[in-house]
């Protein structure tokens, strides 16, 4: 085992140090560890290349003299191999270290620790930045985050079962385009393949495994997608007029697009994204909230209240 490792390291060093492409025969001649028949060496080399590539090392193939039909050569470009952050200051190193530390105990912790190790190998001292950090930890998104980020980068198609608001299990096929976290929950936004529209899903509402497969060939990132507006909902066509007692109804006030004082009450105008969700929020506030408009919302609330009175009488 040790010999294979030595050979991989030696190959890396040789391909990094060379200024021009090294041909296979040059490699076999000069890099230690390539032994046996021509066929054996060939097989060894193919496997070694795959191994290095799987470690994320880019091996370039080319020929050093394009005019003649030369044998292909190989090299590793220093600038691709090395962590190149340009001229980096101690303060920047500290910021990156703090960013990595935010993952303590959460999904990307292991990757973050490896990144930290590389940062501390750059030979740049870090600044002691006094920034509040204890309150800022990333919430654990579970084991799915690495799969999702990879799917986003490679525009793969992900398939999962999603619990909708009626607890129905629906299979969704989505090309993910964004990942965001808010109030302790992680969300994926993506183009739902059935309706060809952007939808956002809360990851903990996914039931079971997420599988990633090759994405549609002609996929294009929707121009209209704005990651900062994921939580704003679709442009709402309708509004509700709701009276809220002064000093009450904070969750509704947060959603209101305008507010007008009516003495003991304030009248709010709220966009309606989902009638059932809004009805539920209105009911939560009991006698401190009263719906003026629209008629359907009043009807829905009256129907719920009648049931509530009946069920609890």
């Amino acid at each position, binding site marked *: 085992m040790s010999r294979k490792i030595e050979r991989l390291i030696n190959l890396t060093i040789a391909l990094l140090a060379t200024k021009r492409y090294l041909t296979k025969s040059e490699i076999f001649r000069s890099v230690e560890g390539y032994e046996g028949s021509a066929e054996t060496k060939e097989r060894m080399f193919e496997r070694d290349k795959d191994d290095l590539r799987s470690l994320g090392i880019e091996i370039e193939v080319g020929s050093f003299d394009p005019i003649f039909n030369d044998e292909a050569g190989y090299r590793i470009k220093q600038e691709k191999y090395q962590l190149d952050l340009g001229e980096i200051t101690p303060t920047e190193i500290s910021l990156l270290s703090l*960013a990595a530390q935010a993952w303590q105990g959460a999904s990307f912790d292991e990757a973050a620790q*490896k990144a930290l190790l590389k940062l501390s190998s750059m*030979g740049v001292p870090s600044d002691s930045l006094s920034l509040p950090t204890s*309150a800022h930890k990333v919430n654990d998104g579970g084991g799915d985050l690495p799969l999702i980020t990879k799917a986003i980068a490679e525009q793969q198609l992900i398939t999962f079962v999603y619990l909708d608001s009626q*607890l129905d299990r629906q299979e969704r096929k989505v090309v993910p385009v964004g990942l965001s976290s808010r109030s302790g929950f992680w969300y994926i936004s993506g183009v739902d393949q059935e309706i060809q529209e952007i939808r956002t899903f809360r990851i903990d509402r996914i039931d079971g495994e997420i599988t990633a497969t090759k994405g549609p060939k002609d996929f294009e990132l929707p121009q209209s997608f704005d990651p900062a507006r994921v939580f704003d909902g679709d442009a709402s066509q309708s509004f509700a007029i709701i009276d809220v007692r002064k000093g009450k109804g904070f969750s509704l006030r947060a959603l209101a697009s305008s507010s007008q004082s009516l003495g003991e009450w304030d009248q709010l105008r709220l966009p309606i994204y989902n009638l059932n969700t809004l009805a539920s929020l209105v009911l939560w506030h009991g006698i401190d909230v009263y719906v003026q408009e629209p008629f359907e919302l009043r009807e829905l609330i009256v129907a719920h209240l009648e049931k509530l009175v009946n069920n*609890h009488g």
Partner: protein
Amino acid sequence: MGKNFSAPLERTARLLDLVPYIHAHQGIALKDLAAVFEVSNAQMVNDLTTLWMCGLPGYTPLELMDLDFESGYVSISNAPTLAKPRSVTFDEGVALILGLDLLRASIPVDRIDLLEKIDFLSARISTIINLSSTFSVIAPINQGVSAAIDQALSSRCTLEIEYHSVYRDEVTERVVFPIEIVEIDGQQYLSSYCYSASDFRQFKLDRIQSAVVTHEIKTIPKDSSKTEKINSRLKVLKPNRQIAERFSKSDLKAGSEFVFQTYSQQWLERSILSSGDGVVLITPPEIRASIAQMAQSMLDRYKDE
């Protein structure tokens, strides 16, 4: 994470990362180095011995790396090709970009220099890992709140907070003695003793609207827990996701009953009201009656007008 490399590959990766690390930490104790790379001392000696055999083609002492670790302290020379750390992998880059995004919220707004650095680093890493899409993390709380909580926690002093209680539907001012930040079901809470409630309370971080350190030295009274648990029984009529999440029940079936414990009568009443025709509270009878009465007075108003 992500890929699980076979043992030889994992070891190859470790050796490649060892060289720049030793370069940046010449003379590091062998046991410290082993701890950083999370391997035993014996394994580290093994790794260093293997590295010693590596170098540029030729493999004479001139081309081989020069490692010294017999004294128990490790130093390296003649390894210029591997002296710089390897570039970050996709997962490592994503971890940094998301971490930077979160960090951005904890930087005071007047530190434009730091904010610019964060944007620069984030863009730089996106280029390195070839990422064109968008990831974003929105910090749960604002910078002022976070700084005050940190200060109060580290200097063991009290905080004056404005807190939005969803159960009571009010924003109240409270004086609290913060104990720690805890995570429950992925949500972060400030665990504190609350002088206003004369009891221990957990405040959800993203509902703390403001926080000011008071520098007052207060103590936590002994025997301060007076809250009583409410044991309730509920029956599911129409299962839906909101009910499942609110009562943490993953398998709701129409007609099934379950027991639920809570400390807050208001929370229970509001939860039942907001579930509408989805659930019925069976016991306790006094809360059941109070729900019926609340629903009736709301209904009266809709019928009147």
